[in-house]
């Protein structure tokens, strides 16, 4: 058991780094995802098509391959990213790809009648989006957004492969040093479970509040 006590400090520190990364990358991914969804829906053939293929790429390629291309592949061409930059860029790029689809589904879920009513009142497209469609789409897609953020959290486990010192990385170090991987991985598992439970709780309380009008 004393392995756990020995490593608990660094594991918690690693966990904090995962949390930070999840929060930062999720915020950026959601902002880009919202823009991407609007571009996909209303951007015309070229912009919409480009975003479509981007999403296909993100969803179609194995995460680990994407990460390795970014970190190892680019360095061959003289672009050397440090683990933190590579981690953030990949998480944002990956999350945004999924967020585009979540937002797009949410926007399309808003009834056609809402667009008609807004148009008939003379509201332009920007105001209609901002005041009518996005607020309703947001409520409809909150469950999917929660899932997306949990996915981002779980994706941080991959980052130890490029040397980013997160919780998983510390556990690997400890497991190699002590030859007692069991207890350390259990601690990591518990940390991840607690963190995703917290995300889900925040998500469902937001859902309840946002859907008060329903």
């Amino acid at each position, binding site marked *: 058991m004393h392995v756990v006590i020995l490593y608990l400090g660094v594991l918690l520190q690693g966990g904090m780094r995962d949390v930070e990364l999840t929060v930062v990358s999720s915020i950026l991914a959601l902002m880009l995802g919202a823009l991407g969804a609007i571009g996909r829906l209303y951007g015309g053939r070229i912009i919409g098509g480009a975003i479509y293929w981007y999403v296909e790429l993100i969803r179609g390629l194995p995460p680990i391959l994407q990460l390795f291309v970014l970190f190892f592949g680019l360095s061959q061409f003289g672009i050397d990213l440090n683990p933190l930059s590579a981690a953030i860029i990949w998480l944002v790029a990956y999350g945004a790809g999924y967020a585009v689809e979540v937002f797009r589904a949410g926007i399309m879920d808003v009834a056609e009648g809402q667009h*008609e009513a*807004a*148009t*008939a*009142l*003379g509201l*332009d497209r920007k105001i209609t989006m901002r005041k009518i469609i996005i607020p309703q789409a947001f409520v409809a897609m909150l469950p999917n957004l929660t899932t997306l953020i949990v996915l981002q959290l779980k994706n941080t486990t991959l980052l130890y492969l490029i040397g980013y010192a997160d919780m998983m990385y510390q556990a690997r170090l400890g497991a190699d040093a002590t030859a007692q991987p069991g207890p350390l991985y259990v601690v990591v598992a518990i940390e991840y479970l607690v963190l995703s439970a917290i995300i889900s709780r925040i998500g469902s309380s937001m859902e309840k509040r946002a859907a008060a009008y*329903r």
Partner: protein
Amino acid sequence: MSNEVVVKVRGVTKRFGDRVIFENISLDVHKSEVVAIIGPSGVGKSTFIRCINHLHSFDEGTIDVQGFRLVGGQSPSKAELQALHNSVGMVFQTFNLFPHLTVLDNIVLAPMQVKKQARQQAIDRAMHLLAMVGLQNRANTFPKRLSGGEQQRVAICRALAMEPEIMLFDEPTSMLDPELVGDVLEFIQRLARTGMTMVLVTHEMMFAKEVADTVVVMADHGIAEMGPAREVLESPRTERARSFLRRVLNPVGSPREPNLVANGGDDR
């Protein structure tokens, strides 16, 4: 009703893909005239009135609304659409209130965003409109908490808040429970008496007879008959209009009379 034509429809044809919905429709709506459009379901009534405020484009012909011209196959500029939507209000079968906004915010949104009214001014006007339909105490309620009849009256207030010259109604009472229909029709009738120009798709034949100046019967991709309300409804000249009216006025197996206007008449 005056002689001034405010909506002039000429030779309008609408297709969805290859399918012709209606062909070569022409129609004049005069200032303060109430035009009721009736006809079997699926004939294109909703599609037609949506062409008037360009919620649908159309393929051929022209529609002049108060000096703007919509031309089949061409898209109007943003500024033209803006002006069109400023002068034409619309009420939908399914109300289409914004569910995430309170009754009051539903009504003040467009005046504030489009007409740039100050919030207080918009609120004053909204409360005045709500008071007309006895809903001033529901201003801070979300639409879902209202009955269908109340929602529809709010939707009418929302359209009126933009001070339109012309109002379009697409079967405003057909989603309502029968006991809620009267209040909504009564409000529309009051509006007609103020001289509002209205184009109204309806299944309420008695209401059409009472309130409309002109009745238009749509059938088989076009207008089957059009004329003064009583004439068309009581003694239709064409066989298509006759057969439609026979069906709606004496539905097989239903002894119920068509809906009468609640308190309709001249007691107000």
